[in-house]
């Protein structure tokens, strides 16, 4: 920063900083193990393959699932696209309804819109209750009865609200699709850094997430899929490594996650993600949640007493995550972010890839601070002081 000012990083919902163990794991891969995987018998290739597959085992285990439940993707976005291309295109057709919400990230909207346009599948959106800023669960109870696929964000990247995914899954399974049960996709991108999720216990069919939001590297993420459902999926990205045999007439495919991992995979990235879950395993995630959630609650509370600041979110709920979205009555969000940046506070502004939610909130953008493990009360206090001075000067 200008003048060597220290940086306070409050943009963790966009991407987290990486612990040194993660950087070291990737360095060690590149320096000692670098080799392509699955394809050769030499020692390095064996070590690389073992490390890559061990990453699958350990990342899957961190989320309470056996290794054959986890397909590596480049992130949440590709994971949701894999559900759309690999599963929905093979299992849904005209007349089916995809139920999602107004609270979704674009990653959980646009793929369905494209599918809908192509296949005539209908999308319906559960609204946000304008007063409580939570999903309208009564509307969900009715809507789910017609739904074949339910796609819901676990924890909002704007409001910090955690949806009652347990109930959503329960309702989908028991009353979905006229009682025969709906499939459920959970966008866990913002949940994974905040709580320990057990995919198998959760009971959804698909769960998408990104490594880079939980201390891991960019370029990798995953889709968890129940194996019996994985079997009903068609190939998405195709090429080497995902095939069993290729002839000029046609090809047959691998079974399990490999069917969906074509080409040279994200090898170093898998080593890095593995290191990040190993690092996270050392924390009690209940305490991490409490720490981060408390920072958000405390910050939101103090901010709301700054004149003109308006908070968007429910920081009275215990389940709230580390996100505080806010606006000032007269200072534009973008100006706010610039001004805060000049004080060394990295704060995000914009529509947060959630334009329909912005629409529901009646704004075009918000400023957002988001905390993680390493943020402190002191940083929050300094932020409040600086924000106060900005509001005094520019408000």
């Amino acid at each position, binding site marked *: 920063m200008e003048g060597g000012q220290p940086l306070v990083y409050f943009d963790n919902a966009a991407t987290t900083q990486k612990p040194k163990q993660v950087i070291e794991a990737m360095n060690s891969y590149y320096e000692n193990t670098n080799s392509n995987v699955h394809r050769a018998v030499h020692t390095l290739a064996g070590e690389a393959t073992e490390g890559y597959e061990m990453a699958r085992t350990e990342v899957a285990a961190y989320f309470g699932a056996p290794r054959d439940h986890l397909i590596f993707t480049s992130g949440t976005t590709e994971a949701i696209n894999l559900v759309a291309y690999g599963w929905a295109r093979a299992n849904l057709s005209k007349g089916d309804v995809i139920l999602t919400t107004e609270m979704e990230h674009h990653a959980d909207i646009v793929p369905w819109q494209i599918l809908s346009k192509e296949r005539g599948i209908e999308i319906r959106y559960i609204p946000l209750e304008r007063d409580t800023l939570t999903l309208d669960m009564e509307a969900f109870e009715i809507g789910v009865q017609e739904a074949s696929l339910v796609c819901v964000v676990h924890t909002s990247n704007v409001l910090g609200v955690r949806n009652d995914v347990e109930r959503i899954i329960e309702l989908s399974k028991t009353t979905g699709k006229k009682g025969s049960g709906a499939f459920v996709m959970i966008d866990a991108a913002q949940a994974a850094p905040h709580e320990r999720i057990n995919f198998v216990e959760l009971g959804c069919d698909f769960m998408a997430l990104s490594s880079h939001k939980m201390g891991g590297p960019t370029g990798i993420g995953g889709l968890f899929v129940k194996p019996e459902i994985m079997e009903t999926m068609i190939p998405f990205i195709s090429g080497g490594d995902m095939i069993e045999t290729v002839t000029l007439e046609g090809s047959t495919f691998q079974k399990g996650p490999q069917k969906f991992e074509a080409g040279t995979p994200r090898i170093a990235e898998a080593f890095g993600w593995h290191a990040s879950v190993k690092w996270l395993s050392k924390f009690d995630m209940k305490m991490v949640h409490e720490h981060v959630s408390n920072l958000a609650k405390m910050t939101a509370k103090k901010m709301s007493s700054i004149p003109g600041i308006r908070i968007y979110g429910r920081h009275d709920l215990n389940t709230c995550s580390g996100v505080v979205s806010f606006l000032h009555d007269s200072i534009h969000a973008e100006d706010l972010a610039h001004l805060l940046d*000049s004080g060394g506070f990295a704060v995000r502004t914009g529509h947060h890839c959630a334009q329909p939610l912005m629409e529901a909130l009646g704004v075009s953008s918000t400023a957002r601070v988001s905390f993680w493990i390493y943020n402190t009360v002191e940083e929050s206090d300094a932020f409040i002081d600086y924000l106060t001075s900005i509001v005094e000067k520019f408000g």
Partner: protein
Amino acid sequence: MNEWPPPLQEIINEFKDCFDRMERYELLFEYATKLPHELQAKDWTEENRVKGCQSEAHVECTLDENGGFQLHGAADANLVQGLIAILAIGVNGLPPSEVALINPEFVDEMDVKASLTPSRANGFMNMFEMIRQTAKIMSKEV
């Protein structure tokens, strides 16, 4: 070294005298209030919208009775509006042919570009291009 129209040069000097980024922002905010021809929100159209800005910004160019260039504009973010104002103060009244030749680097000299994101910088560049293109066309028409 670029040569700037004297009114623009004057503003650049003012920014150079600032102590830090915060002071430069204060100055930009101040200029935002000095925009010569503010484009009223009712006149914001898809046509005059600047693409690539995170926030809304609109600009229009006209000629005054003497054939001098006039920039009209507005933005919902003050820092953007400040930039529009500076540009307007800097070029208003000049012949369009001169406006068409202005270099966007004055923003670097003011040292505010460092505080623009690439997407904002992009928006600014888009705005700048809109203005230069119009000035070019105007200078041919004159």
